């Protein structure tokens, strides 16, 4: 599979959305922000367009008329790593998580604002560019500095000791910076596949991380919880 490095001035976004008014607003917003937009109104057509046009990012509405959005995600992930941003309706939490577990990269809940949309698109494209590698060994967010090469973590230039699991948790979140990581993904990644239901482990460890790294652990600034979904490390301000 090929991952296109987006050196083009206008990244191409494929929008798979059946509602004409949403398409209209997205069209205006995205094109005015420098993106080239390809529109598709059904799942089948969308899948076809992906292989035909090779977009840099896919925005997929989960509530499509002809196909289940989850099925589209699954099918796409079978052969391409193109970032997928899913649009879900309120109250359909389950679908969101399933899509993310199937391989979608991030989500937006309707109704959403332009800022949020653009932020997520940026994140998605950035990760694409960065491929799998993290480019710089030093990661900084707020007053926290993480030396990935030497495995040191500094808060306000004071070194803070993290346990191996805490460190692994942090680095995983860094790797997915600004993208949501589902609970299941984190559990599998850090503790192993048999732990994918033991959410309390995750909670406790995230709590410990927040206490060690955040100024006010109860009002975190970058270790953001997305209830019902997972966690997001907010580095992009």
């Amino acid at each position, binding site marked *: 599979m090929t991952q296109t490095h987006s050196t083009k001035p206008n990244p191409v976004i494929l929008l798979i959305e059946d509602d004409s008014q949403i398409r209209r607003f997205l069209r205006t917003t995205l094109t005015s922000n420098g993106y080239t937009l390809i529109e598709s109104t059904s799942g089948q057509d969308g899948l076809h367009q992906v292989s035909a046009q090779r977009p840099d990012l896919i925005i997929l509405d989960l509530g499509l008329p002809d196909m289940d959005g989850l099925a589209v995600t699954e099918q796409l992930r079978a052969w391409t790593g193109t970032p997928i941003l899913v649009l879900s309706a309120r109250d359909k939490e389950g679908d969101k998580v399933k899509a993310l577990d199937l391989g979608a990269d991030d989500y937006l809940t309707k*109704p959403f604002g332009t800022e949020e949309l653009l932020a997520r698109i940026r994140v998605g494209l950035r990760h694409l560019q960065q491929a799998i590698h993290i480019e710089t060994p030093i990661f900084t967010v707020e007053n926290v500095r993480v030396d990935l090469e030497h495995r040191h973590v500094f808060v306000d230039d004071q070194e803070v000791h993290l346990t191996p*699991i805490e460190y692994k948790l942090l680095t995983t979140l860094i790797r997915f910076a600004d993208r949501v990581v589902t609970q299941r993904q984190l559990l599998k990644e850090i503790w192993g596949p048999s732990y994918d239901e033991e*959410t309390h482990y995750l909670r406790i460890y995230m*709590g410990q991380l927040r206490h060690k790294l955040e100024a*006010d652990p109860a*009002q*975190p600034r970058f270790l953001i919880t997305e209830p019902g979904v997972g966690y997001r490390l907010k580095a992009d301000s």
Partner: protein
Amino acid sequence: MDDHQRPDPDELLARVTEQEAKRRRGRLKIFFGAAAGVGKTYTMLDTAHLRKAEGVDVVIGYVEPHPRPETLARLEGLEAVPPRTVEYKGTQLREFDLDAALARRPTLLLVDELAHTNAPGSRHPKRWQDVEELLAAGINVYTTVNVQHIESFKDVIAQITGVAVQETVPDSIIEGADEVELIDLAPEDLIKRLKEGKIYQPQQVEGALRSFFRTGNLLALRELALRNTAARVDVQMQEYRRDHDIQKTWHVGETLLVCISPSPLSSRLVRATKRMATSLHADWMAVYVETAHRLRPADRTRIEETLRLVEQLGGSTMTLNGSQVSEEVLRFAHERNVSKIIVGKPAHPRWRDLLFGSMLDDLMRKSGDIDVYVITGEPDNPRPFNAQMPRRTSSWSAYGQSVLIMVVCTLAAALMFQFFAPVNLIMIYLVGVVLTASRCGRGPSVLASILSVAAFDFFFVHPQLTFAVADTQYILTFAIMLLVALTISTLTVQIKQQAETAREREKRTASLYAMSRDLANTRETEALIGLAAKHMREVFNSEITILLPNSAGNLKPGVGELPLPDLQEETVARWVFDHNHLAGLHTDTLPASKGLYLPLTASQSVIGVLAVNPKKPERFISVDQIHLLETFANQTALALERASLALDAAQAQIQVETERTRNTLLSSVSHDLRTPLAVITGATSSLLQRDKTLSDEDRRELAQVAYEESERLNQFVGNLLDMTRLESGGLHVEKEWQLIEEVVGAAINRFNGENKGQVIHVTIPPDFPLVQFDGGLIEQVIINLLENAFKYTPQNTLQNTPQNTPHITPIDISAREGIHEVIVEVADRGMGILAGDEERIFDKFYRSQPSNSKGVGLGLAICRGIIQMHGGRIWVENRPDGGAAFRFTLPMTEKPPGIEEEDDPDA
């Protein structure tokens, strides 16, 4: 002649209902004749063929297989329901198959011989009952009947022909038939046919001619048949006239009363009364007076049978209690406005009347304006029925006791002999007699009476120790003493027995009252069933099961009740339920069942079945018992209906509430949707203006306000959806072990930038335990509470303090552990809650200051709903320094799971 009067609306309604019922019922046509062989079956079949030619679906239900060739020929061409065979005493009997006929459901069914008695094991003992069921199912029936089979003519027929007819049909069936066709044949012609062998087999002809088919008989029977038909026509004519010129004939109606006794004469009396009542168009009833005398079982059975006969013939029955028959009867007659009393002629010898008084005499003398009809009876049994000598056997010990008492009296008298004159000693003996009478009963008290005289004579009258009497005056004393003793003993025994009977009755009434009272205080169906069954079990000494239909329509016993013994019994119960008619032991329908089944009929319909399995089945022969059982069943049915109606009423109430809520919701939604929409429409339409009247600043402002209002709309819609899901049960709580701190953080994060600089302080102790709850829902709760706090907290700007320094009013969120729960608090420094609003604030659509608020009043209601679903509590208190503190609890019933310690080489 006939005066035209306005018809009585009740009467008209009754008639209309009657006509309605008639319409749904099948039509019965009876082919009526004076004797066998006049051609009833033949004519019936003929008519059936005519109907078939007209296209009517005609089926033969059952036609007697007479060896009459002409009749047999007419059977050809008609479909027949195959008869069923019943094994009875070694022979195969062929019987009408009722179930097959009901299944076939033709428009018209032919059923011969209405008076036939079915073989044992059939659903009904009599064919006319089978026909009743067919009619009730809407099937039209043709049938045949001879005049000798009519119940009320039984005695007359017996007189005419000398033959006592066993198989009879109640008059009500004949009277209720839609059409009666008389098949008339002159006696000479009938006899000719008989001789020609067209009616019976050749060998039977001789015998028939000699007995039944005598000319005199046939003439009389023919007259009876003709007269009966004429009377029927007369009734029809009257009805017709009544329908067209309303005539108030019915209200001048008479009421007849017949007195029943154990004598076999009674059934004759009943039938005669029925005939009289029919001709007078009168109501009639039968009364039996239960006195203190005990009846032999055979007599009691006869009474019950007579009472049942009365009901069958269409009269009502009443059993009275009393010592004097005539008195009770007359009192009752006056109460019920009886116009005529019918009694039988006395059969006992004259001396009894002289000695004990004649009931008849009493009746006649005291009847006042009521007519008394005295009817002949044939005393086939010389036993007098008004016997004053009750049969009662006392035990030997009772006799022994009476002797003992007499001995004691004698001893006492002996002691007193020195001081008192002999005459006074009689009193002691009389006391002894009274004692004996009250304790020992009839026989021993008579013995005591005699013994007292004898003892007195023997011991205390000159010459003593002999039975001879010196002073003949003592003869008189003896005579009077004996008389007095006997009278006292009779009266005492009578009183005692009456008291017993009264007690028996009182017990039954008391038990009925007790059950009624208990039922009145109970609401739930299950409890009602249990109570009713318990009471009835005690009173009737039987196994009681109450069956109610479940949602599928099958009858099931109530909770905790025993099921019916077998499938057969279940079928009987089902039949009772479907037909609203009692069946089972000792009734007309399915008498071979193990138990007695009564329908539980409430005001509208049958709601269940009462199954009674008596420990002593014999007791249930009496009509009285069945009436009492029916009364209990009625009470139970009414109570059950009341319970179900109460439930319906409660549900209707809920409906009303739901409607009201829905209306409030609609009006609120309407307003709260329109307002932001108005703003958005206004602002954006302004933005769409092409002219340059708006500056960039203005445009920005319009866009901003439109955005803000759309956010508000979003929140409102969200609340509405949450509320709807909460109410309809669509909200699912998925509990996981969560950190309060994390959820609070997530909630605060949602307000990213929108809280306009509000400061939030979060105080949660470190190492606060994990609590089980649904993260998303509790996040919503905290968001709603925060929104509320933002709304009612002054902005984080200048407070009015003397120094005029900026005063920050933060919102405080905290959590602490309680006993098996955690308590989370969201507190502000706003204006607090008005006294009295603490509860109402959580109600839907409640806003404490309508003018001030921007929300719709659902936020707190949603919080309450979510917290309640978690099993917690939510409430609000005013803070001592001002402001409101909202607190909610989440239960902590289990210990949170631990995690494995990890290896940390650098720790």
